[in-house]
C-alpha cells in the first residue's frame, strides 16, 4: 500500500512537473496561434482609453488574421491576444505581467495603457528578456533607462507641445516681432507625463530665448485653475500652454470660457479625449491640440491602406465611435509591428524577434515606423491640429498641414 501511495505521489508530481515544463513552451505558440499578452485597463481611471486601445489591438489582430496571418518557417500562424484587467494600477500591471510570463507562458507583449503602467511593465520585460511593443506610454523616462525590450510606436511626451513654440516664433516673425519677445504662460499637471511635456516646451523656449511668465503645476485633483487664469489676465502672455490629461483639458476649457481668456494662442493636450468642442462649443475655437495621429493625414501602409481607410474600417467594426481615437490607431499599429517582426526574424526565439523589431522599418496608416536604439519611434512626428469652427484641422507641421493657422484665435466665431 505504501508503495502504491508512493507511486501515485511520484506520478502526480511528475505530471505537475511535466505540465509546468510543457505549459510555457506550448502557450506562447499554441498549435497555429501566436499568443500576445497584455495587461491593460478595463476598469479604473484609465478604463475609457484602455478600452479604446483594446479595440485597436483587436482590430489589428483581426486584419492580420484575415490577410493570412503571420508566416514563420513556411507555416501560417494566427494572432491572438490574452488580456488581463490591470484596474489602472501599475502594481497590478506588474503582477499580471509576471503571471502572463510565468503561468501562461506568454513571451510576446502588447503594452498597457498610460505611462505609469508602462513604467511598471518595462522592468518585468527586462527581467524575463521578453519584448513588448507598446502604443500608449509616451513618457520620455521610458526611453532613457536603457531598456532593451521595450518599443513604442508613438511619439514621446516631450514632443507633444514643443511644436507650438516654433509655431509661436513663426507667428511673431510674421508680425514683425522677435521670437524672444514672445511671453509664455503654462500650467502642467504635476504628473510624470505632463512634466515631460513641460520639459519639451522649456527646451524649445530656451532655443528661441522666450520668456516664461507663468509656470504653474496643477494638482492631481484638478478641479480649479482659475487663480492661474487670473494671472494670465494680469500678465497677458502671447501663448498659453496647458496639459493635464482629459480632466485638465475639461477644467481649462470650462474656466477659459467662463473667465473670457483672450490669449491669442492657446494649446491644450487631450482636447479630443475631453470632448471639449461638444461641451464648450465656440469658446474652444482656435485651440491648438497636439495629436499622435489623425485620419486626415496622408500616411499609407499595406495592412489598412490609408489613414482614412483605417478610420472607415474602425467605425465599421465598432459601433458608437464618431471619431476614431488615436489611442486605438496606435494600438493597431503596434500589432502590425509584431507581424513584421515575426516574419523578419522567421523564428519564435524571443531574442531574434527582439532584434528584428529593433531593425524593422516600414510605412503604416499610422505613419512611418523605425525604432531608435532607445526604443522610441523616430519615424513619426507629432501633429498639431487647430479647432476651426468645431472641426479639427491639421495646421502644423507644414508638411502635413491641410489648413492655415488661424491667429489670433477668435473664440466666438
Amino acid at each position, binding site marked *: 500500500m505504501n508503495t502504491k501511495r508512493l507511486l501515485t505521489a511520484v506520478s502526480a508530481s511528475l505530471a505537475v512537473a511535466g505540465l509546468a515544463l510543457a505549459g510555457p513552451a506550448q502557450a506562447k505558440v499554441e498549435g497555429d496561434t501566436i499568443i500576445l499578452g497584455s495587461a491593460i485597463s478595463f476598469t479604473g481611471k484609465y478604463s475609457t482609453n484602455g478600452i479604446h486601445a483594446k479595440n485597436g489591438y483587436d482590430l489589428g489582430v483581426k486584419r492580420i488574421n484575415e490577410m493570412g496571418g503571420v508566416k514563420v518557417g513556411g507555416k501560417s500562424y494566427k494572432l491572438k491576444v490574452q488580456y488581463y484587467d490591470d484596474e489602472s494600477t501599475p502594481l497590478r500591471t506588474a503582477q499580471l505581467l509576471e503571471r502572463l510570463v510565468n503561468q501562461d507562458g506568454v513571451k510576446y507583449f502588447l503594452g498597457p495603457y498610460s505611462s505609469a503602467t508602462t513604467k511598471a511593465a518595462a522592468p518585468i520585460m527586462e527581467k524575463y528578456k521578453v519584448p513588448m511593443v507598446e502604443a500608449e506610454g509616451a513618457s520620455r523616462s521610458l526611453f532613457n533607462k536603457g531598456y532593451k525590450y521595450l518599443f513604442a510606436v508613438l511619439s514621446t511626451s516631450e514632443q507633444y507641445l514643443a511644436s507650438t513654440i516654433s509655431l509661436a516664433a513663426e507667428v511673431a516673425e510674421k508680425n514683425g516681432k522677435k521670437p524672444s519677445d514672445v511671453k509664455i504662460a503654462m500650467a502642467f499637471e504635476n504628473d510624470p507625463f505632463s512634466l515631460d511635456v513641460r520639459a519639451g516646451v522649456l527646451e524649445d523656449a530656451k532655443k528661441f530665448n522666450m520668456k516664461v511668465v507663468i509656470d504653474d503645476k496643477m494638482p492631481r485633483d484638478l*478641479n*480649479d485653475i482659475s487663480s492661474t487664469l487670473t494671472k494670465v489676465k494680469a500678465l497677458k502672455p502671447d501663448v498659453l500652454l496647458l496639459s493635464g490629461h482629459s480632466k485638465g483639458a475639461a477644467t481649462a476649457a470650462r474656466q477659459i470660457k467662463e473667465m473670457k481668456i483672450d490669449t491669442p494662442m492657446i494649446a491644450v493636450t487631450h482636447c479630443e479625449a475631453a470632448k471639449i468642442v461638444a461641451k464648450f462649443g465656440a469658446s474652444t475655437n482656435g485651440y491648438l491640440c497636439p495629436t499622435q495621429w489623425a485620419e486626415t493625414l496622408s500616411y499609407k501602409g499595406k495592412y489598412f491602406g490609408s489613414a482614412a481607410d483605417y478610420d472607415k474600417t474602425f467605425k465599421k467594426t465598432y459601433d458608437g465611435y464618431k471619431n476614431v481615437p488615436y489611442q486605438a490607431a496606435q494600438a493597431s499599429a503596434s500589432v502590425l509591428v509584431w507581424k513584421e517582426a515575426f516574419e523578419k526574424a522567421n523564428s519564435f526565439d524571443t531574442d531574434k524577434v527582439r532584434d528584428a523589431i529593433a531593425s524593422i522599418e516600414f510605412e503604416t496608416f499610422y505613419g512611418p515606423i523605425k525604432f531608435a536604439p532607445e526604443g522610441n519611434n523616430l519615424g513619426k512626428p507629432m501633429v498639431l491640429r487647430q479647432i476651426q469652427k468645431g472641426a479639427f484641422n491639421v495646421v502644423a507641421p507644414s508638411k502635413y498641414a491641410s489648413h492655415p493657422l488661424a491667429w489670433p484665435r477668435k473664440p466666438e466665431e
Partner: protein
Amino acid sequence: MWDNISILTAAPVFNIQLILDGLFIGATFALAAYGLALVWGVMNVKNLAQGDFVITGGYIAWWLGKQGIHPLWGMPISIVVMFGFGWLVYITIIRRVIDKDLFTSLLATFGLAIVMAQALNLMFGPEVQTAESDYAVRSYFNNSVTVADIKLIAFALCGVLAVVVVLFMKNSRMGQAIRATAQDPRAARVMGIDTDKVYAFTYALNAAICGAAGALISMIWVIQPFYGIGHAIRAFVIVTAAGFGNLPGVILAGLGLGVMEQYGGFVLGAEFQQATVVGLLVAVLIWRQIEMRRHRQVVQ
C-alpha cells in the same frame, strides 16, 4: 512668488477676481462642512464619505442635465435622492457602527467612500464632467474681472439653503429632537425621543445637504468620480477650525478657505492651491493645541 504679489499690489483689480471666485466656491464648501458638523456633533460619526456624497449629488444634477432637465432643477431632485440614499446608508451601515469606537466608524465610512467612488466610475466613467447652465458671463473693469451668472445664483442658493436648515433646526419638532439628542442622547431617550430615528434623519439630512452642494459644484466647477477626497478634506478643515454647533463659524471658515485657496493658487502657484488647505489644517491644529494647553494651565 514676489512677482505674483507685486501683480496684486500694482493691479488691485485682480484681488476682486480672486476674492469673488473664492467666495463663490467657499459657499459650497461651507454647505458640505455644515452637513459634516451636524453628523459629527449629533452622532459623533466622522463621515469620511462626505466628499463622495458631494460628488454623487453632482453626478445626479449632471445626469439629469443630460436628460434635458436644467441642472438648477436637478438640484432639488438631487437633494431628495440623496436624502433617501443617506437614510439607506444609515440603516445598512451607520446604525451598526454608531456606538462602536471611533476607529470602526472611520473605517466604515472610509470603505463607503471607496465603494461610492468606484461605483460612480463604473456608472459614468472616469472623465471630468460639468453641468452646463448656459447662463451669461459678465465682465467688469475691461474684462479684468469676470463673473459667471451661475456662480452668483449658486452663491444665493447656498445662502437660502443655510437659512432653511437653520430655521428647520430651530423651529421644527425634528430639529428640536436632533438638538436634544446632540446634547444628551440618554436623556433624550428618557424623554421619549426615538434617537435611532433622529440619527437616521440627521444622516439623511447631511446627505441631502451634500447633494445640494454637489449639484452646485457640478455647475460652477467640475466633477469626477475620484474628486470626493478633496471635498472631504476641505469639510474636515472647516469643521476643525470652526467647531460643530457653530454655524456662523462654519460659514466664515468655508468662505475664508475658498478665498485662501484662490490666493494660495495665485501667489504660490496652482500646485499649492490644495496644499494651502492642508497647511491650514495643520496651523489650526497647532493653534488649538496651544490654546488648550493654556486653558489646562488655567484650570490647574
